């Protein structure tokens, strides 16, 4: 067999080509197109009707109100790409918030308290991953169980009391992360963008990221090709747990307290953002850029409804309908696309991974 080393003359590729092999990234840009167009349309309407919409202050509001969703969404995107789902992410974040607040309250310094919150999230995520990958228990069962456990845990630790840490000195840097700016740029935006770049980079430029797609696309093919499937799965749920830990920093920073009861819509909003962003629940397709767009889209809608003085009671109806429409359009497009492929090329019709 010819080894690769003797192929010394690399065939020069067109210099203008995109740096990645592309795979379906080129296609997924088309995948975002619908949402981006809708986002622009909504933003245009709001700009015209609401004078306060297109102001930097309002943009900062949107960023502040949606960072938790974004950070959880980044972790959730990884999990969903493997054709899994982490239902525990929001309640785990609440548990991490309680741990962080209690640590500050007990006089811990900044670094140990943050490390505790992150480690708590990562460890809980690892537990999910271990049970799913090694215990071969359905990810739905494991993460649904974990959802319930962390929800309850958050109430138990302080008997349902909110832990206010506004006056704790060690907490200040976290509060500043959420409230301060460098010039006009909020620190939180920098934090968010940095996380998007890190998660996106991992997805695109590492073997781990590649393995996520492979497992989500066809777990058996990934396994037979030498990918350590259980290690990757454990790691991906650990990362989702870590994301819950990171999100709790923002949450606690904004509330200046650890609250044992999370926003009941948080989990659904996170998953909706991932879905709207084009990451497929059947696995193997998606990316963090899409999730970021999904978060912004939902955030702008939410913001617009608030600015337009629409009762918050209506917001669920609106965002729910948008979710169904967005994903429904995606399904239609996908269907047309795969039918065309199958007929035209006489090729095998795409099948979901065997799980």
């Amino acid at each position, binding site marked *: *067999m*010819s*080894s*690769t080393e003797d*192929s010394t003359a*690399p*065939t020069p*590729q067109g210099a203008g080509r995109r*740096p*990645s*092999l*592309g*795979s*379906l*990234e*080129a*296609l997924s840009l088309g995948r975002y197109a619908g949402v981006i167009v809708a986002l622009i349309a909504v933003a245009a309407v709001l700009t015209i009707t609401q004078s306060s919409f297109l102001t930097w202050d309002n943009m900062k509001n949107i960023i502040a109100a949606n960072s938790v969703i974004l950070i959880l969404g980044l972790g959730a995107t990884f999990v969903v790409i493997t054709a899994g789902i982490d239902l525990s992410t929001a309640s785990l974040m609440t548990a991490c918030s309680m741990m962080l607040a209690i640590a500050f309250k007990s006089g811990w310094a900044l670094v140990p308290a943050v490390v505790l919150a992150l480690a708590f999230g990562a460890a809980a995520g690892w537990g999910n991953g271990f049970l799913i990958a090694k215990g071969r228990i359905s990810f739905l069962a494991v993460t649904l169980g974990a959802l319930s456990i962390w929800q309850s845990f958050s109430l138990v630790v302080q008997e349902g009391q909110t832990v206010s840490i506004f006056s704790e000195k060690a907490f200040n840097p976290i509060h500043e992360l959420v409230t301060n700016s460098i010039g006009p740029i909020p620190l939180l935006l920098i934090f968010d963008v940095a996380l998007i770049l890190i998660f996106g980079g991992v997805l695109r*430029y*590492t*073997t*781990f990221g*590649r*393995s996520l*797609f*492979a497992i989500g*696309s*066809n777990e*058996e*093919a*990934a*396994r*037979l*090709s*030498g*990918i*350590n499937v259980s290690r990757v799965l454990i790691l991906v749920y650990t990362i989702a747990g870590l994301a819950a830990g990171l999100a709790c920093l923002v949450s606690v920073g904004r509330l200046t307290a650890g609250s044992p009861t999370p926003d009941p819509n948080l989990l659904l909003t996170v998953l909706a953002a991932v879905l709207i962003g084009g990451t*497929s629940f059947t696995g*193997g*397709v998606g990316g963090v850029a899409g999730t970021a767009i999904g978060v912004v889209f939902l955030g702008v809608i939410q913001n617009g409804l608030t600015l337009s003085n629409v009762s918050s009671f209506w917001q669920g109806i609106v965002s729910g309908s948008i979710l169904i429409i967005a994903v429904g359009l995606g399904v239609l497009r996908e269907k047309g696309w*795969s039918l*065309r*492929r*199958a*007929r*035209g*090329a*006489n*090729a*095998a*019709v*795409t*099948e979901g*991974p*065997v799980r």
Partner: protein
Amino acid sequence: MGEENKAPLVEVRGATKTFPGVVALNQVDFAIRPGEVHALTGENGSGKSTLARVINGSAKPDEGEIYFEGELTTIDTPRQGLDLGVVNISQELTLAPTLTVAENIFLGRLPTSGGRVDWGRLRRDARGVLENIGLDVSETAIVGDLNVELQQMVEISRAFSSEAKLLILDEATSSLSEAATRRLLQLVTDHRDKGVAVLMITHRMAELYAVCSVATVLRDGHLVGTAPLPETSERKLVSMMVGRELDDYYNKREVEQGECVLELDGLESEDGVLRPTSLKVNRGEIVGVAGLVGSGKAELGLVLGGAVKSHGTVKVAGKEVKLGDPRRAIAGGVGFVPDDRKRSALLPNRSVAENFSLPWMRRISNKGILKLQKERREVSQSIKRYGVVTASASNAITTLSGGNQQKVVLGRTFELGGDVLVLSEPTRGVDVGAKSEIYDLLQTAAEDGVGIVLISSELPELLGLADRIVVFFGGEIKGEFTREQMEEEAVAHVAVTGAHADSEEPNNETEGIK
């Protein structure tokens, strides 16, 4: 036989069907008569599946007319096709995996009494169908627990137990062993004699000549011609399909054999399907593995690929390899290509490039960071080396034909540079042209000093390529044939009965059985 005089059951005139970017059918005329077994053949992408879909109602032609029993009609949905008596058996399984065999056979027409399913009658009827077809599987078995071949047979049972006027078999034998294929062909001739028309889409020349009385050949959506069988020679038929003369497509090359590169001693699978087996393969040697489904031949592949747990010793190039995990098999120098491309090899919603580099992660990365330049370079070289026809490496793998998908799977495994290649059904669902390319690639690997274990249900393929054939029966090697001894009948006899045709003692190849 006088069938030519009968009025056609189905006649298609001037059918044209276009899909974005491709004319799948271009002014095609076609007719099939009752009691006729009609072969529809051509390379992948020639439009034969589209024509079948037009007839069974799952594709609507842009132009053209369909006559059913002489009357102009439209078949817009598969349901309408079924109502007319057009029953389709495709290579894509359409079974409900969580239901029983009996429920699947009678799906959509469960026997009822007083509005409730008559389970007793269902079981009895199903039993009858299975016995009639000679399929040894319990009617209460869950379909998802069966292997691909048995599932395909259940699908076939369903079709043959229905009241069909026209049966369409779309590559229905592609996942069947020789014996199951023979059984299917018997069913086909039985139904033909009862006046049923059978349309067979197939690449396999042997079965085409065995049962078909006429063949329609398509190429690039055009009708090339309709030829009577068996008067038209295989050579002529293949040249009609590919549009050029094709030499003997196995093209067996003599390869100097080197030292022993793979040595199995008492290797068995944990589930017992593969009984303790011993076998040696030399560098440059192609060892063919024959046997029926359930004979253990597929299990041998899974064990060597590390896909299932096993006991016994395996030495690759003199070094012992602990199997039981695909990673250890790969690291030990065993490249494995599984038999079910879609289920076990392809990443369906990823690109050609990612499908290529899937097992190369270690090589194209440094400390977990992908070297995308290197990946792109190696993928584009491999696309050339293995003759994969694709507009771009970033196209979705599913846009490729079956043959090109398989070349990707084979190529990526060959490129791992292992000492041993274990290929399970490497040409399943692949057209004639791609097959001969794959045979060529395989022999090039042998010339490079790789030891090859070629597991196949297609005997002609083994006879054409292998230096030696071992035959599995009941989980064990029951026969071994050198190139000089190989004869189709003799090999098949061992595969079916587990013993040589003459009652001589089996050769010493059974030494591994304890």
